[in-house]
């Protein structure tokens, strides 16, 4: 798969979820290459499958909704940096798997010391 190409380059991901009923933010910074190989590959594939670098920087919701999340994701890879800000209802289908994975990692990581953190397998 093409998502495994270029795996020598460093990939960094910054993820931030804000809004929601509680308004309490959820944040995560990942040095992808510091993760176990399988998890690192999975993230690289999710970024590639989302066509992340082709997404518009701003994806706003057109629904008169309230208390939904907003996501801000920045990916640095092979000299490229791209940021996407998306309302929950405006997240494209192809980006959801990456959003879900980063959300899960961030939720698990927040109650654990950083050096203790392992990306969980499928739940």
């Amino acid at each position, binding site marked *: 798969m093409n998502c495994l190409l270029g795996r020598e380059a460093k990939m960094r991901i910054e993820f*931030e979820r804000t809004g929601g009923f509680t308004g*309490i933010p959820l944040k995560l910074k990942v040095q992808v290459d510091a993760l176990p190989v399988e998890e690192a590959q999975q993230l690289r594939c999710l970024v590639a499958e989302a066509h992340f670098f082709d997404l518009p920087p701003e994806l706003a919701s057109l629904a008169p*909704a309230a*208390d*939904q999340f907003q996501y801000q994701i920045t990916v640095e890879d092979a000299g490229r940096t791209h940021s996407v800000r998306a309302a929950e209802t405006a997240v494209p289908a192809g980006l959801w798997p990456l959003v879900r994975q980063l959300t899960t990692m961030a939720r698990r990581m927040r109650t654990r010391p950083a050096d203790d953190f392992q990306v969980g397998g499928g739940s």
Partner: protein
Amino acid sequence: MTTMIHPTNCFVPPHMLREIAQRGSPAQRERALRTLVITEQLRGQRLALTDLPALAKRALAAAKQRQVFDAEHGSTLPGRLVRPEGHPPTGDPAVNEAYDGTGATYDLYWDVYQRNSIDDNGLRLDSTVHYQQGYDNAFWNGEQMVFGDGDEDLPEEERLFNRFTIALDIIAHELTHGVTQYTAKLVYWDQSGALNESFSDVFGVLTKQRLLGQTADQADWIVGAGLFAPRVQGVGIRSMKAPGTAYDDPVLGKDPQPAHMRDYKNVSYDNGGVHINSGIPNHAFYVVARELGGYAWEKAGRIWYVTLRERLDARADFGAAAYATHQVAGELYGVGSLEQQAVRTGWAEVGIGVEGGSTSGGGCLTAPATLVATALRWTSRRDRTP
């Protein structure tokens, strides 16, 4: 079925009741209408209502219509219907909390403010529970309420959130976003967005206080009490009595809400801090309720409800809300009345005057263009809303 059937309801055939509803004396009309309502509920139909006068249609529509769906941890809305109106409790606490919570909210709006559901026209109240996995949120999507189960997918010691139906005021908060969508249409950004949030918190806690029969001084004024799992150091998500003190936790951080205009937070996230700066109007409402004493939904709540219903523009700022609530208090209870004075005191305690001055620094639109487009779309829709 839990509906009480009064024996006399069965004697008069519907066509005669409709005749009485149209031509009888006021007392006869009222009795006929009530009978029709129950008959209608029993039949579960709305047949032959087209020739009724508007008042009769309104009365007939005035019945709770709830539906609770189960997303079964997926993302498809609304999901599988698990409890329609009138059906008995299921064994699932989330389902029953959503059903009872939307019912209690409907009752506040109908019994106290004579508002018939979200659209004031009997709109069915749809809720979905068990949305996604590990979904630590509840929201209104423009058409229905949606509730996640919090951190149910994590080991117990790592959980921060319980299921979001656990607090009645959260359910009433989400339903009120629907009411706002059909009334002031407050744009979900900056101060109008924080007002949108605040109205949801206000009618959220009022629903709970009314169900518990609490006066203003007996209530805790906490939004989302019970939502945190045991490991979290906090009493709830927001405090209307003391914004900024609801939680202070090593993992979640500290409650960021300001209680005064001088601490207003200009931020770009959270739609311009709508869940942060709502602390300011929240506290103003609390002070009004504290000043007036008694049941907060009766006077303070009425002033806020009338303001939301007919006195705010979609881009209203805190100053506009202060002005409008002060005007409404004067109209409802008299110029210079204790109620109107209490409203002035409430806004003064958060650093806002009631003279109508702008609180949003010149009123420049700072929202992204797409959001402004959305706001304009809602505003143009307003004319078509009955």
